[in-house]
């Protein structure tokens, strides 16, 4: 009984993980399904058809590449702008810092419907045609804030004496940045970039307001949800999910390896 009592918390936690993972299991399992009707929601028959022919319906793959292209532009712009803001906020003291800080967090504290709706109101009022670029503008807006949060965390934990030491050793400000600061902040910047891409790639609510006739991957799924989502969509989602997990595992392994060698030295 005490054995059980000691482990109650563990069991509850594992149950919660199972709860979080259950839909992912369903997504992966149904990617191997041969649906009975149009709706791919119930198990029918094992089939590799979707895995061997992902682009059978060209619109699926087209929408996938639209999302990838938007995601890449968003990641590059948001990561650069967000990292710049983060450096200013953590490394400098300046007038208007508090206002800047709260301005950065406002988009995170606003529901996505409002972000999407207000941008649409602006685009309508100034007659901007909706499409690829309006989606990209909207995505950059809400990802910048997340980049700042992630890079801030990394920068704040960085010992400023490392940079002071470099300057003491006659490094120019540029050299200090290039050889000391930047490599140390890089993991945070990479994490922010990965986060921006996945936020942009998966966003539906804001995109739905500003997409016009452009079909991103989530927009395709939303449209397909009514008539039945083809298993090919599950294949793409499974590949992306398992791929990200693999990359994350790799990053953790590399980080561990590095910290080990540091100790040895």
């Amino acid at each position: 009984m005490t054995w059980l009592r000691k482990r109650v918390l563990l069991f509850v936690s594992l149950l919660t993980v199972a709860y979080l993972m259950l839909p992912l299991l369903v997504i992966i399992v149904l990617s191997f399904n041969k649906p009975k009707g149009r709706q791919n929601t119930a198990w029918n028959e094992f089939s590799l058809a979707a895995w061997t022919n992902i682009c059978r319906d060209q619109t699926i793959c087209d929408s996938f590449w639209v999302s990838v292209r938007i995601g890449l532009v968003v990641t590059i712009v948001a990561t650069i702008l967000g990292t710049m803001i983060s450096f200013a906020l953590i490394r400098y003291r300046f007038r208007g810092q508090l206002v800047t800080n709260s301005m950065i967090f406002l988009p995170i504290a606003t529901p996505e419907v409002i972000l999407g709706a207000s941008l649409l109101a602006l685009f309508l009022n100034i007659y901007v045609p909706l499409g690829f670029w309006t989606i990209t503008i909207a995505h950059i807006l809400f990802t910048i804030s997340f980049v700042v949060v992630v890079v801030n965390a990394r920068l704040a934990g960085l010992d400023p004496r490392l940079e002071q030491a470099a300057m003491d050793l006659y490094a120019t400000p540029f050299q200090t940045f290039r050889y000391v600061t930047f490599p140390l902040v890089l993991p945070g910047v990479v994490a922010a970039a990965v986060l921006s891409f996945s936020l942009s790639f998966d966003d539906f609510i804001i995109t739905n307001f500003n997409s016009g006739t452009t079909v991103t991957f989530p927009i395709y799924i939303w449209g397909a949800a009514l008539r039945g989502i083809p298993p090919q969509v599950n294949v793409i989602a499974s590949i992306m999910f398992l791929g990200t997990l693999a990359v994350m595992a790799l990053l953790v392994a590399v980080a561990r390896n590095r910290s080990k060698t540091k100790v040895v030295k």
Partner: protein
Amino acid sequence: MIPYLLILPGLAWILFFFLVPLLSLVATSLQKRAGTSLSEGFVPALQFSNYTSALGEYFPQFIRAFLYAGIATALALVIAYPIAYYIAFKATKYKYLMLVLVIAPFFASFLLRTNAWKTILSADGFVVETLNALSLLPEDRILNTSVAVIFGLTYNFLPFMILPLYASLDRIDPRLVEAASDLYASPATGFWRVVWPLSMPGVLGGVVLTFIPASGDYINAQLLGSTNDKMIGNVIQAQFIVLRDYPIASALSAMFMFVLLIIIVTYIRRVGTRQLV
């Protein structure tokens, strides 16, 4: 000079594409129709009746959004606390593995994950059949009920609750808990008098981060609920994209934002002051 140059492009982006659009939204909410039909467009005006007519028509969806989001947030807190506590204090070796597992769902499509609950909660599925065998379901089903919508909201925003809770629990010095037990506090007293108050920043952050997206969500209500479970997000979406009655849609959005802001500020004030006492 340097910090201003660094913040300028990013801040300009937020000003132009967040603050200006919000003003544009308010301006649109006061426009009136140019003719008798929607297709004739709208002209600038100060038609405040847009607000009253929008509220009159969509009051139930308004209330429902905050009600569903509130229940989902409370459920998420109850579900998230044990696992956050476990990761922070007990999962020594598997800490990062468990954190990865909590974050992992983010990397699979939100829409597909929500849709997957259709399979899990389907009428001939294991969950519904078991609950029906125990006659626990008043409507004999879960899908297309408010239960499914609240359940979906709880699921989708759970990581937003777990992560801030974990972050604040992780900062608590475990020796404080030991000190409490050294001073003859029972584990329960130790928890309620030491751990819970110290985790308040995490509770506050988690509640806000869960409640905001949950109240504005329309995906769960659309995919898992019936027409009687529509929330304010569904209405705003439909008005903007399908019906294209922009002034009404904007009025609804502005009111939603305003009420949400009041709720969040009131909540932060009350919890914030209690924390200081």
